[in-house]
């Protein structure tokens, strides 16, 4: 056989082991158990939010890519817009008006992502940018969490989402109830103690009724992501420790005024934030040690906001604040390069 014409290539000559869209898809898969838990607890509204958000995200992404002159097909296939949309949708109260997820996604993707240069260039987590815009702009809509296990059927839900009213003419407000975090916060402010509150219907077996199971399901998905090595352990462990350690200290100090650590760990969006939101690699710190600090910062800030701040759950703001700190954290946590002295002191070797 004659010698073929050989083509140049540069080392390494090994096929890539991953691709971005596969990683993003795995994040979506890992969200499935928690999402199903939310659907079981809150009904169709969860799925309607996801459908609205994903549709809006794909449309918005396509338009922005076209405007920016980027290959639309290739970047749409990276699934990053879908992940962002699903994460935002899962943060929203079910059965909010249809425009709430749409506005959130558009703000997140346009302001939080494409105006900074698109995938890989956004300093802030786009889903949390969208969520923060909604929380600040439409606090009324964002407080409409349903009473667990009492959600209306599909048609009723669709009607509520599109018109804000049920066929009976009853408004959404009739179905809603404060979340456990919200409830505890207002009641504590009203002078009740936690020992009195913990016997109430808002508390379940471990933490807030219903929410504890959602958090455990998101935890299961997160552990799967860890095992598949899609995410590293540093950020989730950092978030959970950052939340649990202050919670434990304050709870030991005054158990009547400060909730048990488990209430925080399995309450609100803790597990979703720890494993899925804070781990967005683009806006997080990138050094191994830096990621631990970054996660811990989110946990501590979330505890502070939950306990003393103006919002029942502070994870979104905690994530955004730590996004700002990520470059600084990276700068100060560079790993010691092999063969270099440790800091100022000489390496013992």
């Amino acid at each position: 056989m004659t010698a073929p014409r050989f083509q140049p290539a540069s080392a390494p000559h090994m096929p890539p082991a991953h691709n971005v869209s596969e990683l993003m898809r795995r994040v979506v898969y890992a969200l499935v158990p928690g999402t199903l838990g939310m659907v079981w607890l809150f009904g169709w509204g969860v799925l309607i939010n996801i459908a609205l958000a994903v549709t809006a995200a794909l449309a918005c992404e396509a338009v922005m890519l076209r405007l920016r002159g980027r290959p639309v097909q290739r970047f749409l296939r990276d699934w990053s817009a879908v992940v962002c949309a699903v994460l935002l949708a899962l943060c929203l109260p079910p059965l909010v008006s249809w425009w709430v997820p749409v506005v959130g996604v558009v703000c997140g993707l346009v302001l939080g992502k494409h105006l900074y240069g698109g995938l890989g260039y956004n300093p802030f987590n786009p889903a949390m940018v969208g969520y923060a815009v909604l929380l600040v702009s439409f606090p009324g809509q964002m407080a409409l969490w349903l009473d667990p296990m009492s959600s209306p059927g599909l048609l009723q839900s669709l009607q509520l989402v599109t018109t804000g009213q049920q066929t009976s003419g009853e408004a959404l407000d009739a179905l809603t109830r404060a979340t456990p975090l919200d409830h505890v916060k207002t009641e504590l402010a009203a002078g009740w103690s936690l020992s009195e509150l913990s016997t109430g219907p808002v508390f379940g077996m471990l933490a807030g009724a219903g929410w504890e199971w959602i958090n455990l399901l998101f935890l299961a998905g997160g552990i799967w992501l860890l095992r598949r090595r899609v995410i590293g352990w540093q950020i989730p462990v950092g978030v959970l420790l950052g939340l649990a350690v202050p919670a434990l200290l304050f709870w030991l100090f005054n158990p009547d005024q400060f909730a048990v650590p488990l209430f925080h760990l399995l309450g609100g969006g803790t597990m979703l934030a720890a494993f899925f939101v804070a781990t967005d690699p683009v806006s997080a710190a990138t050094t191994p040690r830096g990621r631990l600090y970054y996660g811990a910062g989110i946990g501590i800030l979330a505890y502070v906001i939950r306990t003393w701040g103006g919002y029942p759950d502070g994870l979104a703001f905690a994530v955004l604040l730590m996004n700002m700190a990520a470059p600084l954290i990276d700068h100060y946590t560079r790993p010691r390069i092999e063969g270099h002295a440790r800091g100022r002191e000489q390496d013992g070797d």
Partner: protein
Amino acid sequence: MSAAPLFDFPGGLMLPGRKVETGEPLRQPELPEELVIPLKQHQGEAAEPVVAVGATVCRGDLLAQQSGTLGANVHAPTSGAVIAIEQRPVPHPSGLSAPCIVLRADGEDRWSTCLPPPLHDWADQPPAALRERVQAAGIVGLGGAGFPASAKLAVSEKLALLIINGVECEPYISCDQALMEQRAQEIVVGARMLAHAVQAERVVVALEDDKLQAMAALQNALRIAPEPPVELVAVPARYPAGGERQLIRTLTGREVPTGAHPTDIGMLCQNVGTAAAVYRAIALGEPLTSRIVTVTGEGLVSPCNVEARIGTPLQALITQAGGYREQARHLIMGGPMMGFTLPDDSLPVTKTSNCILVLPESPQPREAAMPCIRCGYCAEACPVSLLPQQLYWYARARDLDQAEGHGLFDCIECGACAPVCPSHIPLVDYFRYAKSALRSQERERRQAELARQRYLSRQQRLARQQEEQQQRRERKKAALRKPGAAEDPAAAKQAAIQEAIRRAREKKQARSGAGPEDGDGRT
């Protein structure tokens, strides 16, 4: 087997082995009619030819002599006639030509009659005598780096540890494995010779823990001749465990400081192939004229290990491996992680050719890379604890100083970061680019400094000349004012002519002295 504890190095990758069957005897390619022997097959200075075109040589005769302290002798790989000493294409990433000796084989393959005699009593010889033998035999590091072995052996103090590196961590390559399985005795004796040459306190032969056959062969060799002691250590198979620094870290837990050599911390690493070549040079008197090459890859019909003479064209090796398959697209010298592509298979085998890899269509994705999402997988894989994602940003932004500050030159270009990148960014290309840009920047800076100095000295010279001219003029004026000068106009004229000739000569001298400098100064 040694029970000494092993240590871990950061990062690394688990890679598929894809090694060929190493049990079968080494194939010998047919002697080619023409061998092309590059004068530089090692790090350092090219060797100086000591034969003329037309000379008849035998296998083992010196063709070119080491020049400079860093260099290596080159010997005739077979008997025949020198038909040319000229520029020929050589296997090098640059694809450039380099001076080579072209040998027409006479087919008799006669050994030279003036080889040094076998050194049976090597253990009683002074270390320097062994080092001289190694140097004369033209042995260089056969693991791929090609550092002259004798230069590595020139240590001033006793070494604590000599490591014989059989950790062949790149996929596909199995020439060291074949050598360990088939010539374990040579490696063990060669290791002892090297240990004697550097007065090492401890000798370790390291290999990967999944190379059971090689392990058994080495154990057997050690059982037959147990003294002086040589330890056998199996290290976990993980790329790049066979890197010099990574292996030292694994065996001792110590790090070689950046910019330093292992000998600076009392250690020396030599490849198993080098040890076997040292054995042949000392025990048999044979210089380095052949090596084992793995000829493999999905683009070949029957991959194998061959023992090839230096200078054999690659196509002879390809023929031994059954020829190309239809899908052959890339011809690579070295392994899949660090090897470089070659334009064609007429290039010769050199002392550092450990593997010829023929791969189908590049497994790298054709489509452009996606943006970096800072996932950090590259940092996890880096065996030097660099942050490849940061280096990539700096290299892309041409912020070369920052890249250097982030340890760019600590990058060993092992390529572990690139295959794990989900965005398929050719990270190593960026690092190679940044390194070469920094090197040329440094070169330019040095040149500019040189030019500045030349300019300054030229300015000084011009000022001096002007001053001298001024003085001469004044001298002349003074002479004209002398009363005697006016009385004899002919004599005055003669004096003026003499003075003019002297000036012209002076000027000419000054110009010829300054000329080349001026010329260079403007470059």
